[in-house]
């Protein structure tokens, strides 16, 4: 098959998966959570319905809002959509995978976090300010853990580009440093997705939605979708490094990828009802522990294990 056609198909497929899979997983997540709470719960498609409904609602803009408030969710969404083309999900020689590297992906992901926080800060609301402040404080440490684990992966595989990393990883697999590092990446994905012990930036009962308090309509949809996409991209990255064998299989690739991410989201969904929300100091301490684990993976990678 033509290389260019593959490139176009796989990038479209990547973008499509990144937009539609996470809301579906969120619906499953809500269902499982409700079952554990002994409720019936919303239908699985509920999150997609919510987003669709938000798209046709009116926008309400607060008086004190700056232009950052208006454009940040869209910008974050477009950054993440571009990142989704670069994260190889199914076919090895997919998309721009051969010219891009892990650092660029990390950069784009953290840029989108920063943009979302800027949007919250731009609303002028004190609750949003508090939420954005928590988000940024937690991001410092989450980024540190993600950076350490990505660097240990790059050092262990001796490569920078995505394709080389996957090729190398599927040969040398399984090694402890890469397993630990991708585990840390999964933990980072959990934290970045505003899930329960770390749900501090939104914290509905406490600061009434925090960072998203002033958002409504299409902007709220873009904001929520961006959070989902960010989490999904981190999960996709980690899961393919953890289990790289099936990635280059053209036929089995897609179902196995969906299965892998589904298992991860299943674990997330079972984890969430077990926790109550942390206070910010507790959250920071537990993220610091994760940073420590990522340093262990860095040391192991340096030793060549």
């Amino acid at each position: 098959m033509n290389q260019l056609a593959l490139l176009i198909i796989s990038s479209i497929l990547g973008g499509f998966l990144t937009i539609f899979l996470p809301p579906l997983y969120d619906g499953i997540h809500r269902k499982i959570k409700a079952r554990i709470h002994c409720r019936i719960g919303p239908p699985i498609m509920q999150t997609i319905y919510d987003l669709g409904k938000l798209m046709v609602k009116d926008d309400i803009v607060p008086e004190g809002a700056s232009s950052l408030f208006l454009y940040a969710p869209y910008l974050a969404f477009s950054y993440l959509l571009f990142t989704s083309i670069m994260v190889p999900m199914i076919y090895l020689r997919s998309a721009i995978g051969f010219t891009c590297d892990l650092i660029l992906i990390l950069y784009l992901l953290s840029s989108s976090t920063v943009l979302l926080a800027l949007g919250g800060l731009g609303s002028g609301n004190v609750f949003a300010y508090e939420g954005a402040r928590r988000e940024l404080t937690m991001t410092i440490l989450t980024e540190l853990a993600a950076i350490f684990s990505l660097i240990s992966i790059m050092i262990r595989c001796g490569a920078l580009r995505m394709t080389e990393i996957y090729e190398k990883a599927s040969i040398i697999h399984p090694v402890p440093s890469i397993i630990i590092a991708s585990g840390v990446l999964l933990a980072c994905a959990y934290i970045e997705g505003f899930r329960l012990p770390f749900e501090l930036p939104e914290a509905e009962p406490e600061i009434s939605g925090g960072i998203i308090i002033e958002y409504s309509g299409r902007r709220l949809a873009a904001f929520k979708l961006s959070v989902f996409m960010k989490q999904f991209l981190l999960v996709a990255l980690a899961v393919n490094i953890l289990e790289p064998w099936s990635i280059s299989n053209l036929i089995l690739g897609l179902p196995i990828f969906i299965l892998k991410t589904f298992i991860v989201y299943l674990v997330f969904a079972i984890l969430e009802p077990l926790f109550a929300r942390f206070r910010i100091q507790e959250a920071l301490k537990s993220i610091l522990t994760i940073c420590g684990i990522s340093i262990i993976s860095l040391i192991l990678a340096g030793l060549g294990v």
Partner: protein
Amino acid sequence: MLLITFMLFIIASLLGAFLPNVRWGSRISYILSSIASTILLYASAKALLGSPIRQTIFSGPASIPLELDGLSALFLLIFSIPYTLTSIYSIKYIEDEYVNAGIDVRRHSICFPIFLMSMVGAILVRSGLWLIVFWELMSFTSYFLITIEHEKEEVRDAGFVYFIMSHIAAALLIVTIISLASWTHPLSFTYSSLRDAYHRSPLPALIGLPIIFTVAMWIKGGIVPVHFWLPRAYPAAPSNVSALFAGVMEKVPIFLLTYFTFRIFDPTIPSGLLICIPGIISMVIGCLYAIPQRDDKALLAYSTIGQIGYIWFALGAGIILYSYSKSLALLAIILISSGLFHLLNHSLFKPMLFMITGNVLVKAKSRDMDVLGGLGRTMPITSIACLIGCLSLIGLPPFNGFASKWSIYVSGIASSTVNMISIPIYVGVALAMFSGTLTAIYSLKFYSEIFSGEPRIDVEAGDVSAILLIPELTLGILCIILGVFPGVAFSAIFPAVQPMIPEVGLAQLFKGVGFLYSILMIPTMLPLSTMYFILLATIAPIIFVIAYQLAHPKRTSVQPTWLGGFRHTLRDTKLVAASFYSEFESMLGSFYQIRIRRPRIAYPEPNADLVLVKPWIWIGRAIGELRRIQVGPVQIYVAILLILLISFLLMVVIG
């Protein structure tokens, strides 16, 4: 051409001194400085394009040999951009901020052109004696520039600390140059004879002189164990002077370090480590300390320490790789060039941010971020410029900071597969990425506390005047241009760095960059470049969103901000800057408390009847005093380090 600019600077200073009207004196002084700087810009661009200038001013023993080629031309180009724009900015800024307030600015208009001239001199001279002269001139004039508001106590304090520290640096530099010159026959101070003298010198000097020289550069460059003058001096100085300090003066040590390491001393692994490891430390500590600052210029000062750390790290890593094996010359040259690219970018966005604090000072009369807020509505153009500056500082994709930081990361990680020698490099890259996140945090704080949200203080409507805005906007446009076309910068930097590392040819270098890292930022390869994709990715969705918004006009209603249903105003409820990262601060409390002095606990004297007990008490006290070296203020530690170094040198000279 160089002689003309030097004369222009001196004339500007004289006119500033002797014109009876102070206001016109300062104006003419700055206008002449900006003209001279523009000539420098032209000369350096011409020299970079291939016609180097070598000339000697005066003849006889006091002749000044000047050379403008390669590295000097690159640095002169980097210097002359902030020179020109800051001079233009100063015309109006000094008038608004000081002349109208009745402060005597004559010392400022005398020293400013001489300060500019001394820094140009320091990078162009090829004689140790004149290097010392220009260095001292730089220290003296900058001291007078800092202490313009000398009736305030904190300004006097800051000036004093700065004066002492810059003279310790000068003393160490003089020690290096004089002891090198003492081995020349006949006595000569030109760099080429100093180089021969160094290679003839005894073993202790071979080891000691590079160390002493590097320590001098640490002090002037604001590197962490000896950085404490910097966060005091920057807020005390007027904004245009802080802009020059951050944009230009911090780069003079980097030039001297690069030049001396490659042309006079030899690049060795220890000399690389002496540059690389302090660079890593200042990168992290500068960024961490920038976060809790309240004063906006102190925040930028710590940020300068952090960003200078990036440059030192890249430079040191390059030297380590090159001296480890000549086969790594390609990697080394790319690392050093990335560091110099970051230096170029830093001289664009940091002066811009300092000028913005100047604008805020003119308008709102405050530097305290707890007091400022919501100025984005009254100063829309300044706030746009500030956003561009902050995004470049963070290093988001379409801006220049991204290109340079990214090439530092990529080339650093590429070297991490070598072996043990690259451990400091990959640890450095990991910490550099961490510092990148910290940079994002404090830059966002800087922007949001000053410009976003609801106004907290009353200022008169309208932005500041155009002369105060044009320099920032020009720098902002340059930031974006270099971010989109980083190949332009690299094609200027590679020819400047390559003569120092002759193992790699220029053609091989340009090819190697594209092949090794797919940086592919050279203009001829642009269609395939990653940067091109980034550009596409950033612009295409924005266009899409805007088009979508235009095509489907939604009903958007403006409602008051929701404040929990209470009748507060936003001004009452807004959180202040001090609360921004309080949790983070309390978690890293032990780290931030380095500078807090704890009260001394007075233990009761033991009942010392016995003569035998007394000596033990004295010994205990002596040990207690010794402990202060380690646990006391950092300054004592540094002072002892310096005393040891100087006594070491004396031993060398006598023995």
